[in-house]
């Protein structure tokens, strides 16, 4: 791969928590490095509280990184100064939100975000052709008949349809990267697959890259080329999706995989309940953040934070115990 579309280096975001006198730092994202190639679908998986949504908001410039840098098409994001430059970035990197019931303004027709995307990012679309362009985007995400859909208010559409509107609004800006933050987790299982199919279809047709944020490994396997696994603010494993799922290296990835319900597998309630949860990382000390839940933990995990290291072709894992192929 030559110059990637986006590169995150040492990406870190801390939040202040606690009272005025007992200020503490919550480490939501700590020293995260990854790349996203052109036309690539990268899945970022982890539990709630692992920091994956914070990564999405860092990429979308909702948050400023505490440290580290995002480089988009060779240009560091921190060097964007003027409104014009920032607008250009928000046209290249767009976001689709988790909750289809709160991501559309109830006071406007569903076309509102699409129209605004055109007004802000595609000035060349003249006012009188805008309507056609809006219907065009609706059609491209499979919302037909476009004329009828365009006249609707959010409450008149189902969750899956609203999520499609979210993608249509994202596409209106002609983006190069769509950051999709758990776009299907609040939808019925029966319509999730339609949204996943839409994403891979958009990649094929428009050449747009995706960062697909999810806690569902099976969904990640279904559409993603590469997978990043996050735990408690750290990236703990990275590699081609199929490899990672077939031979997970990090014990946390193994835990994630074992939690996926698979009705095709034989019945049996043998697995022990893991009642652990990702810790809130407040003023952390050295050591692996997964060690309390880890069945393989050794003494070294207490004292030394494992760094991502190569464990096979294109594979990285942050674990002292993980063995290379």
């Amino acid at each position, binding site marked *: 791969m030559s110059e990637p579309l986006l590169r995150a280096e040492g990406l870190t975001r801390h939040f202040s928590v606690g009272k005025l006198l007992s200020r503490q730092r919550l480490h939501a994202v700590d020293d995260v490095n990854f790349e996203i190639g052109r036309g690539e679908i990268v899945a970022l998986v982890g539990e709630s509280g692992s920091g994956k949504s914070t990564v999405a908001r860092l990429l979308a410039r909702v948050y400023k990184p505490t440290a580290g840098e995002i480089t988009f098409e060779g240009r560091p994001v921190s060097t964007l100064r003027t409104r014009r430059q920032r607008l250009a970035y928000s046209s290249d990197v767009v976001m689709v939100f988790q909750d289809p019931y709160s991501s559309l303004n109830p006071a406007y027709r569903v076309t509102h975000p699409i129209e605004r995307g055109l007004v*802000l*990012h595609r000035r060349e679309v003249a006012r009188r052709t805008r309507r056609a362009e809006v219907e065009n985007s609706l059609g491209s995400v499979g919302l037909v*008949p476009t004329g009828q859909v365009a006249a609707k208010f959010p409450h008149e559409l189902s969750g899956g349809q609203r999520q499609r509107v979210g993608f249509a609004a994202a596409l209106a800006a002609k983006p190069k990267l769509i950051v999709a933050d758990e776009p299907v987790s609040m939808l019925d299982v029966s319509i999730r697959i*339609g949204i996943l*199919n839409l994403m891979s279809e958009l990649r094929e047709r428009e050449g747009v890259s995706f960062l697909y944020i999810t806690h569902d490994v099976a969904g990640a396997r279904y559409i993603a080329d590469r997978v990043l696994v996050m735990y408690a603010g750290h990236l703990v494993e990275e590699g081609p999706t199929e490899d990672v799922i077939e031979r997970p290296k990090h014990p946390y990835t193994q835990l994630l995989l074992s939690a*996926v319900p698979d*009705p095709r597998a034989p019945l049996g309630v043998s697995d022990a309940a*893991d009642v652990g949860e990702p810790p809130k990382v407040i003023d952390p000390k050295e050591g692996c953040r997964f060690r309390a839940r880890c069945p393989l933990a050794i003494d070294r995990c207490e004292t030394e934070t494992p760094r991502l290291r190569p464990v096979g072709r294109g594979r990285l894992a942050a674990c002292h115990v993980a063995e290379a192929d």
Partner: protein
Amino acid sequence: MSLPSVADSVEPVGATVGSGPPEEATKRSAGADLWRAIARNRKALVGLCILLFFVVLAAIPGQIAPDDPRAKIYPRGLGPSVHHLFGTTAYGEDVFSQLVYGTRQSILIAFAVGGLATLIAVLVGVSAGYLGGTTDGVLSLITDVILVIPIFPLIIVIAAYERNAGFLTLVVVLGVLGWSYGARQLRSQTLSLRRRDFLEAARVRGERRSYVIVREILPTMTSLILASFLGAALYAVLFAAGLQFIGLGNPNSQSWGTMLYWAENNEALGAGMPYWAIMPGVCVALLGAAFALLNYAFDEISSPALRLRKLENTGVDTEREAKAAVPARPPDPKNILEVRNLSVAYASEHGPVVAVDDVSFDLGRSEFLGVVGESACGKSTLVYAVARLLGAPLAGEITRGQVLFKGRDMVTLADRELRHIRWRDYSVVMQSAMNALNPVLTVAAQMRDACEAHSTMTRREIEARSKEVLRLVSIDPVHLYSYPHQLSGGMRQRAMIAMALLFTPELIIMDEPTSALDVVGQRSLMVQIKELQERLGFAVIFVTHDMSLVSHFSDRLLVMYAAQVAELGRTRQLFDRPLHPYTQGLLEAFPSIHGAKERLLGIPGSPPDLLHPPSGCRFAPRCPHVMDRCRAEPQRLLEVDGELVRCLLHEQAAASVPAKEGVA
């Protein structure tokens, strides 16, 4: 994986609730909806009529009043007559004409103060709520200070200082002091909007802050802004009249308050000129009532919960059907629960919506039944009906059928009897623990409430039992004294289950208890529920949209589609050999982490509008195996190998089904 084509993932829109014919759909707008809602609301109509009446008076007093209000040309103190509707004043002026001319000032003050106060309220409230931090701190402090100032005395002081206060002074004083209540409401509304995704979406899109506030936030708060305006207008009318009455206005101005002032000075009531004193008061009251009515009306229009309709008015005769349809058959003692021909309907503006249509199933003791289906298929309504939780604000009603719990019909049980059973014999775990738990009470307090309401346990017994149930669900008892927000999502759900276990019930109904959790949390909660069930022996009804979730845990599965039972059978058999095309679709809807990568299609299309369900098989519009006969007639449930399925494909294989209830 093959490349998906556009046609595969098309989602036709139109079958959704509320979509009218196409031409209607394109013409409708939010404004038209609002007008229609106003036209239907009696309070709004009356309020609007009164307001309009006064506005007309205010606009063209010269055309309506017979006389110049200041012309002292008549005999003094006349009683009412044809020429002087309300008599004359002690100065020989026509009272009716004075009233008509006085309207203008009240209307102007109402609108000017309403406008000014609302403007300030919006500026302060929205900026405080949206910008937060120090701005919020300072603005909220100012708002609160103004809110607690005793306004009337203050206005009297100011007005007395500005002796003979004119119109402008009144407006400014009332406006500047009258915005704080509206500002408080707008601030809290903005605060609740701030975290909404559509605002974040606007920011990510690159909108300026001013655009976000003016074009994204304000339009969602029109009803609150309107309420703030109407409230301020009402208060302005009353205060202005009050001030003028005690002589703090300009005594030469034409207004109702000034009329009251002069009438009082001349002891009009005692001197045989009662209308001079009474009519301005009546006008103030009427105008005030108009604003108050409009305010109530908009409250009702903007929050549908306030305008619930009873089903009785909508054409479904609940009582008669309930009695007629259900034959008496003694319940099987092996079953903890028997649901027979249960139908539930909701009232809607367009008529009754049957959300559960003739559903029957049995539940054995210690059995685990999964109820699966898409959103709005009626699965939650079904279990709410079983638990008798359909009262306000849900407004659903059981129109037919029986729910036999331990042999007693829950449908006909009085509330008092229900209280003995609820929580002790059966309990319910709701979908969102954050909403179901009271945020301002500790877990201990909520458990204590439940115990005190349903038992005679002592404090000490309650505490011991609370700790015991927390241990059951693997929560350290130290969390007993935590508030819900101090627990993680998974722990809150566990705490909910612990509360349901307080009395070791024989049946626990769970409505999507895991849907707010991620995969790992879901899995561990499911394993835990199953362990508890095996240990304590209660029966479970588990509602979910995710079939794979219950695959390893439930004994039998009830698949619901569009308010009806589509398939009911043993879980393993359903997964290995699904009979209904809908069940097949559900099974093929989720990707696997094992085996070859296959391209999946899910189930194209959306469920039907329950207001107008298809006349034939309800799944026909989405069914890959649809035949002409499917569309022609409603399908019965067929019995195939001991399973029930509602599909013509299995007509050949179906055993001849005796016409007993349960297989209606």
